[in-house]
């Protein structure tokens, strides 16, 4: 847990779940989950299992399991994950990559 009065600048790595209520600038790499609480400010490249955001995140994120943006979240940066939820009231700008394809339209008759 990085509490509300704490700022971290640099690289954070680990094998557990982490909740950030304060500030982190740099990068976060966990084999566990990252939770960015309401009021927290994270400016970092993030690589985790599951990512839950209620605060603010600026940076690209890769989550092997899921990403959830709750109401009140403010997020900029690219997101790569197999499972994404954006709740009403969350704000996001960026590129989303999920591994799937839509099959091509079964070619309707050409015009003319």
């Amino acid at each position, binding site marked *: 847990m990085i509490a509300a009065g704490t700022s971290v600048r640099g690289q954070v790595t680990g094998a557990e779940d982490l909740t950030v209520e304060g500030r982190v600038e740099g990068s976060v790499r966990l084999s566990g989950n990252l939770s960015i609480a309401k009021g927290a400010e994270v400016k970092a490249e993030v690589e985790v299992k599951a990512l839950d955001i209620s605060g603010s995140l600026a940076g690209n994120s890769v989550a092997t399991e899921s990403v959830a943006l709750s109401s009140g979240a403010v997020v900029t940066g690219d997101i790569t994950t197999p*499972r994404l*939820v954006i709740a009403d009231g969350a704000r996001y700008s960026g590129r989303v990559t999920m591994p799937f394809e839509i099959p091509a*339209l079964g070619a309707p008759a050409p015009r003319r």
Partner: protein
Amino acid sequence: MAITHIGSTLVIEGEISGSDAVVVQGRVKGSIETSQGVVIENSAHVEANLTLDTLEVAGDVKGNVTAASRVEIKPEGKMVGDIKAPRILIADGAHFKGNIDMDVGR
């Protein structure tokens, strides 16, 4: 106000535009432009650029969306393309690939 309804066996290749709500169950390739809402149902397959007030996606959509109000991708929805709207919701289970722009200041 009337609703334009594209039934499940219909295939439209071209431009759909107007001021009615549009419900798509069939296939549309081209563009849809309306001042009202558009619903892409589960059976629908749409390859089109969409300009509208609100959009609900429960089918397959390939294309870019500009919405005046809101875009929602339902759990069964699949979409590839860019979305620009003030409110965007993605449900658990939905598939999406593309750019999202809610005009968040960088």
